[in-house]
């Protein structure tokens, strides 16, 4: 099963509720009707360079659901010497890559702490959770009011609330159309991480 999936969420195609549609261009998503929810994940390229860094960009079209929420969760193997991060932004020059200057929000795990920053070189906010687990999860949810005004940003990691001082507009932007995933200091044969965007059944897995 998908450890990051909320069992209460229903797949898009069940048709009970209107959900967020996530377009994924790099990963095969087979949301087949109401019956099956099979997601074929693909492997993040094995690090081919000695610096162990791997980066993948994927298009993303995200809007708020009818409940006015945007959320994602990130699960990964977290060690004192690895980095797993997701970056959101708008691919302004349309080159299919979220360049350094196009990143608006980064979230992830870096060498012993969860972190988030606005922009590739923005001020970094970190949080350490005293968890002994090897696999850790961060959940990010922005909730808006009737007119789409954000009113609550909730970030949970390893069962704790973190990043409580973040401004609400850090949680989401309708302009985001690209997501960049990166890993560093990882041994691809051992570690895995997953990102689930929105409360939809759509899940993106990278092993």
């Amino acid at each position, binding site marked *: 099963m998908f450890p990051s999936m909320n069992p209460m969420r229903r797949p*898009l*195609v069940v*048709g*009970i*509720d*209107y959900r967020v*549609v996530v*377009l*994924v*261009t*790099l*990963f*095969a*998503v*087979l*949301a087949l*009707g109401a019956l099956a929810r099979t997601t074929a994940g*693909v492997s993040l*390229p094995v690090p*081919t*360079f*000695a*610096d*162990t*860094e791997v*980066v993948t960009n994927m298009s993303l079209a995200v809007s708020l659901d009818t409940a006015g929420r945007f959320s994602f969760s990130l699960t990964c193997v977290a060690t*004192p*010497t*690895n*980095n797993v991060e997701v970056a959101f932004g708008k691919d302004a020059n349309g080159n*299919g890559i979220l360049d*350094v*200057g196009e*990143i608006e929000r980064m979230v992830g795990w*870096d*060498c012993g702490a969860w972190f988030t920053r606005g*922009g*590739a*070189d*923005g001020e970094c906010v970190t949080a350490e959770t005293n968890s002994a687990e090897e696999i850790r999860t961060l959940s990010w949810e922005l909730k808006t009011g009737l007119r789409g005004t954000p009113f609550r940003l909730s970030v949970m990691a390893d069962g704790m609330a973190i990043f409580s001082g973040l401004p609400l507009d850090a949680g989401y932007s309708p302009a985001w159309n690209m997501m960049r995933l*990166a890993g*560093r*200091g990882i041994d691809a044969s051992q570690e895995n991480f997953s990102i689930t965007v929105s409360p939809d059944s759509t899940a993106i897995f990278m092993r």
Partner: protein
Amino acid sequence: MDIVHVYERLVTVTLVSLLGVCAFLATAKFICCCMRTLSLLLRTRGAVFAVIMGVVTTTAIVASVKPKTASTNMVGSRVPRDRNAGNLPGLITDDDIANGWREVEGEWSTAPVEMPSGAVTNELLRRRGGCDWAFRVAPAGWSFQCRGGFIDGVTVLARGEVRIDARTPYFPVPIAEGVSLLPMSRWGQLPDGGVSVFSHAVTSYGSLLLDWRNALVGRSASNPANLQLELFGDGSFEWRTDDSSQLYAPVFPFDWDGDGLENSVDPEPLVAGPDAHGTNAEWYNVVCSNVFEAADAAAPSTAHEDMRPPGLDLAPRAADVNTNAYYFVEVVASRGPAPIYFTADGASRLGNPVVVARAGETNHVPLLIGATYAVTSPVPIAVEAPLSATVATAGDERNFTVAWPAGLACSPQDGLFVPTVSEHGRLNGVFSWTCGCCLVVNGTTMRYACSGCGCGGCSAVVNYGYEGYFLLLAVEGCGCSGGGASAAAPRVDLNTGAYVTVGFDRKGVVFEDAYDNSPSNHVARRSTRAVLTLKANGGANGGVLTMRTSRLSRLALVEGERPSSGPAVTLAPYQEYELVSTNAGALASTHLGDIEVTAALTDASTQEAAQVHASASSVRLEMEAVFEAPENTACRHRHVYGVGEKVKFRTFPQSPEIMFTTRRLDTGLVVGSGLWDYELFDGAEQIDASAVREYICPISANYHPPVKVVLGDVEYEPLISLVEPQDVVTTGASWGENNVDFFYEGNRRCWPSGTVGEACLVTTNYIGPMHVSFQGIAVSEVPCEEEDVITGCFTTSNRRTHTIEAGAGKAYVVKCGNFWIVDAARSGNYAQSWMPDSTMIWKIPIGWHRRMKEGRYDWFGAYGVEHETYTGYESRELLLPGSPNRYKQERHIDEYGVFTTRKFGHWISRSPSCRVVLDGTVLQESHTP
């Protein structure tokens, strides 16, 4: 949601999914293709990257790197660029040039310098490595000027790129996609061991070093290389790798005064000259308006003072190699775009400009006066012989020399002389003079009053040159220096008559980096000079001369030529060889004598060898005000101080051989216990610079601090000016309370109803001006026995003057922010004897004094009488300007019994019914509850 809607969603998602699969497959293939292409690019274009980008091409990729060849443009072993390709050097693009950047070649470090202690290593990169990751480097207190503003940090990409910020790729640097850093767990993969880290540091001279050690070229652990960027205070920067470096300087087309900023102080000195040269270029001759004055009577001229150093020393900008003047040539191409290359015949800070000349557009190109340039371009250029330039044509190249005629004449008054343009020819020359007269080598005679020399018949050498647009003269000392002189240059003679000698004429130099007295008062770098001379003779058999230098780059070349650690020089029999250079401070020595020059001469036949060695030091002085000036807080390194201010002196390096000296000039001061040691360094007139020393400025601006930094025969005098208190600055007024003289009726602080009495005026007062600190003094209301207007009931008062008994004579130490006192002006109740229209005015002189080491003192108190008082005591008066008439405390009772007090620009009145008004605002109508 209805079933139709669900169906539509299902179709949409399925189509998207299928597209996603296709896209993924295409993307995956695309990624692989990119990887291969990138690898291929790095291999075949490795030479270009190495030559042009100056970043990282290691031995693994350099199979096709062009062999290093010598050229007149070479500095060290730098690889020349391929100019004949007809393309722009790939290091900078058209956009970069449009943004005002260009490459230069300068005599600077060509290899990554050692990171200073305290360098900060990026821990995240150390732990897990990285390539495409950005982070901010913004050291506290560091910034540089750029385009009218300040940049206080940069964004660094682990892949070897530096930007102003993530969204602004401002620096014309190559994006080295193949550079990355190894995680610590994999450092064992480095072929020669070591660490793969990024670190940064701010150097002692204020530049920012960004350093990649064992960065992976092509992201391969088998190709580690070192990469470094140094960002200087003027916005220029240099990339360095293990075997090459590339210096960049900003070019601001309208930055005429060369301070790196386009602003209103940029002059418009250019006068169109009659010459035309090259591609419709017009020469502009700068009108020289500089005035040279005697050392002890320097006065500002109408020229730009920040470019002209007060006194006599040339003050080249930091890292300047050549202080020759420059001016902008306008280059207009008849067709384009076309690159036009200017290649100078020697190294200089301006380097070799490259102009992308577009048809019909004007490009400003800075060229050195006195240098010879070869001009090349893929488009035909027309060259005309200008009136003041030398032009030689060789093939497709044009060589021309920028020459600005100069001749000097001297006015017969007070040693002043004004350089005027009167002769043609290249600039080069040495003036020499003896006391009372000067002789110009090129035939123009001048007189110069050699004052202050003191030893009669002394002589000194004056070197002249151009700094920016101005003719400046550098005058060495008068030759009257005492002991501690540098040793004579060592010389070794061989049996064949060959010899070699090398030496500095002084122990080194002392210099100061540029500093700001205020945001609008910038003082350029100042330095003493040291002449380095190397001579050799081949003797009967001829010989081979080898030279080696260490840390010579800590001295900036002012003029001449100096040895370098380059190829050996073959001397023919009896051939004389000489290198003479004048040098100034650029970087501080780590320890004294660490600048070394060694010369070895080997006889060509007998193989007999001789070796000589010389060393020097470069000492940087730093001064820092101890107290903050309330309206000049940023300028801690200012040299303008309030009287009595404390100043920290420190040298780099610190050494007991370096001395801080001064003389106490204020003989009126009484050296007593409990008082500050004004005009001394930690209580002494001379102390060594082995530690930070604290100097206390004179308490009067009448005394110019004769402070010097001395290293053997090198003396450096910093420019210090003093400011005396000018004003009492009152920031607020209120109605005072808690006054024991007042009765309290109920809960009100006032005299009883029906009585005539004063309300207490409380003011908060500071000592100005605020661009300096006055925490080094105490200020008091000086007791005054002089009466002013006394009328009505005040004629019977027992306090008709502001005496000590009336509250004067308390010296309060000025506190942080120049705070002086909260003054309470109040007096008694005149109900019984008041008279309408009564007036009393106290004159209150305000003066400053030495301060105690702690606490304050009262006149006639336990610490004795302060001798600098107004009347009744000896010595001089130390008063703020305009007193005693300036500060008064005025009292007036009108016909209704309203009592008004005025002081420090504020007033308060009280009526018999206790109606209180402060500066026109009613604070209380009456006692009525």
